[in-house]
């Protein structure tokens, strides 16, 4: 229904909504999690604030489980008068967001324990995950704009969490400026879309856009992609990424490199297929060019980095480029979306693993410079194992998850008739070899820095939450690669509903 401005419509919609509430379980879990977290923050004493982290992580996991339950029990459909689409894509992304969000909370907990406003941080993080889920599910321009704004504001706050640190303040302000400006561009584009169709429903907008004049379509779509591209750190809109990751707490950088990015990419895929069906105005080629640019710029810029967080930031830009290959192939190939979903899962696992190692190193050695990784193998063998696994997987070495994912993306790209993009991606993979190995080799080969020669080798990984994250991500990175078959079948089922 395009609009709902009469009493009869409101009544019938209300009745239908009550029946459709079951599809909203995952959203409900995160909403409840966020609100109760705020309430608990006010009630619990300081040394118990960690419980809120447990509660928030529980809400995330529950949301993931409920997403699976909804898929198995209820199936997929567009609900709430097509403002929200609960389909394979959004449910798998919800599950992914739930699990990765919980892992990020575990990663953040040791650094935050005992700080001021710890509980509020977990509440903000839960709300950010809720916004990410909303963004993935949105099929209505109003909800889309609101979700982008909400996801932005919660991540600005998390970036600025270290209030005494100039770097953190600066990072959050830069992030804020880029975020609000690109959001304004996107909302302006959405207002034009509304003018064409007389509704904010994206599918109905798509029906109108097909017959609209080219110049208008290109201009308005470019405006909308501005906002989503910034969320996913695509290349013309990527300037904020290294600064924001560098200034933010490492756990927040991990969060931002996975959740908003994947949500933004999924939303991009949904918006493009809903609003521009059938390759209107040749968007697939435009996105493919964007993908090539993104991966190239990210990889080349990463070569010069000595700060591992900045290096991972540029690496994550490059990874967005690979992921974007999936979006570009959606229209031309059936495998595009499946490859995107699979690579999203693999990327979440390996990138969180990499950031977990960085968090652990920063915690112990107070630095994230490449030199801080020297001789990691001698002192912390388990960290090094995870580091090597996740970096090699980001690089795309068989038999790890990243390899299978990239292979799928290449296949989809070629299938969609964009072989040149696959070639660009292969070249890029070769470039990225340099900087990934640049971190791995001192960690494995070198001796530790002279400052701490006598540190004994320790096989015990502390603190426990980081150990859990390290273990889970490492296992996932390997398992997703070795047992790719069932996961790929799952990804193939994660299709999009067209309203």
């Amino acid at each position, binding site marked *: 229904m395009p609009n709902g401005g009469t009493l009869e419509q409101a009544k019938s919609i209300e009745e239908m909504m009550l029946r459709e509430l079951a599809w909203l379980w995952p959203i409900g879990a995160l909403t409840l999690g966020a609100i109760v977290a705020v309430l608990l923050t006010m009630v619990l004493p300081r040394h118990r604030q960690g419980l809120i982290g447990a509660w928030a992580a529980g809400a995330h996991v529950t949301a993931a489980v409920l997403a699976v339950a909804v898929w198995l029990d209820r199936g997929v459909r567009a609900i709430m008068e097509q403002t929200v689409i609960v389909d394979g894509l959004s449910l798998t992304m919800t599950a992914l967001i739930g699990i990765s969000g919980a892992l990020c909370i575990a990663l953040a907990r040791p650094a935050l324990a005992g700080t001021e406003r710890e509980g509020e941080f977990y509440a903000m993080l839960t709300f950010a995950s809720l916004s990410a889920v909303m963004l993935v599910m949105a099929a209505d321009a109003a909800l889309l704009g609101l979700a982008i704004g909400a996801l932005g504001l919660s991540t600005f706050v998390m970036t600025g969490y270290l209030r005494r640190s100039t770097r953190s303040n600066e990072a959050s*302000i830069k992030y804020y*400026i880029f975020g609000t400006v690109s959001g304004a561009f996107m909302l302006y584009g959405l207002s034009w879309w*509304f003018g064409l169709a007389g509704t*904010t429903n994206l599918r109905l907008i798509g029906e109108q856009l097909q017959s609209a004049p080219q110049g208008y379509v290109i201009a308005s779509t470019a405006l909308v992609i501005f906002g989503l591209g910034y969320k996913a750190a695509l290349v013309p809109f990527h300037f904020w990424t290294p600064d924001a990751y560098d200034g933010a707490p490492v756990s927040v950088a991990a969060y931002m490199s996975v959740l908003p990015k994947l949500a933004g990419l999924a939303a991009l895929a949904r918006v493009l297929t809903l609003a521009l069906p059938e390759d209107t105005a040749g968007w697939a080629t435009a996105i493919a060019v964007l993908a090539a640019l993104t991966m190239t710029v990210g990889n080349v810029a990463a070569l010069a980095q000595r700060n591992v967080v900045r290096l991972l930031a540029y690496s994550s830009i490059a990874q967005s480029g690979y992921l974007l290959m999936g979006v570009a192939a959606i229209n031309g190939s059936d495998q595009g979306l499946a490859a995107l979903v699979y690579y999203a899962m693999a990327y979440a696992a390996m990138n969180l693993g990499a950031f977990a190692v960085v968090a652990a190193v920063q915690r112990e050695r107070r630095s994230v410079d490449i030199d801080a990784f020297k001789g990691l193998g001698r002192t912390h063998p388990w960290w090094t194992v995870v580091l090597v696994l996740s970096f090699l997987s980001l690089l795309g070495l068989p038999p790890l998850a990243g390899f299978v994912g990239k292979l799928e993306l290449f296949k989809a790209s070629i299938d969609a008739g964009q072989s040149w993009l696959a070639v660009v991606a292969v070249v890029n993979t070769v470039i990225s070899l340099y900087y990934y190995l640049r971190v791995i080799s001192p960690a494995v080969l070198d001796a530790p820095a002279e400052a701490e020669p006598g540190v004994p080798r320790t096989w015990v990984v502390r603190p426990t939450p980081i150990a859990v994250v390290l273990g889970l991500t490492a296992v996932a990175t390997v398992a997703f690669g070795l047992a790719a078959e069932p996961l790929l079948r799952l990804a193939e089922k994660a299709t999009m509903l067209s309203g």
Partner: protein
Amino acid sequence: MISLPVVLVAAGLMFAIGLYGVLGQTNTIMVMMGVELMLGAAMLNVVGFLRYSWPDATSGAFFVLILMTLMAVEAAVGFALVISAFRHSRTAEIDDMHELKG
């Protein structure tokens, strides 16, 4: 006479003014003002469409409400960030921020 293109051109100019502020100002709060103008331009677009193309499109009116919400919410978070930064470094100037390489 007033017509849809007039409204849209006015909105486009307003958006450009906001963009001018965003690009040209050195102070975070001034940049926020530019963003407010840009969002205001988007609202003006929608209201123009409501008047001249889609008088029954309540979803557009609702979209304007969401835009107003976003304006308020983004301003609130922006102020909080400025306070946080100002308390520490006594400045809200973007040009003074060069701790990170950019």
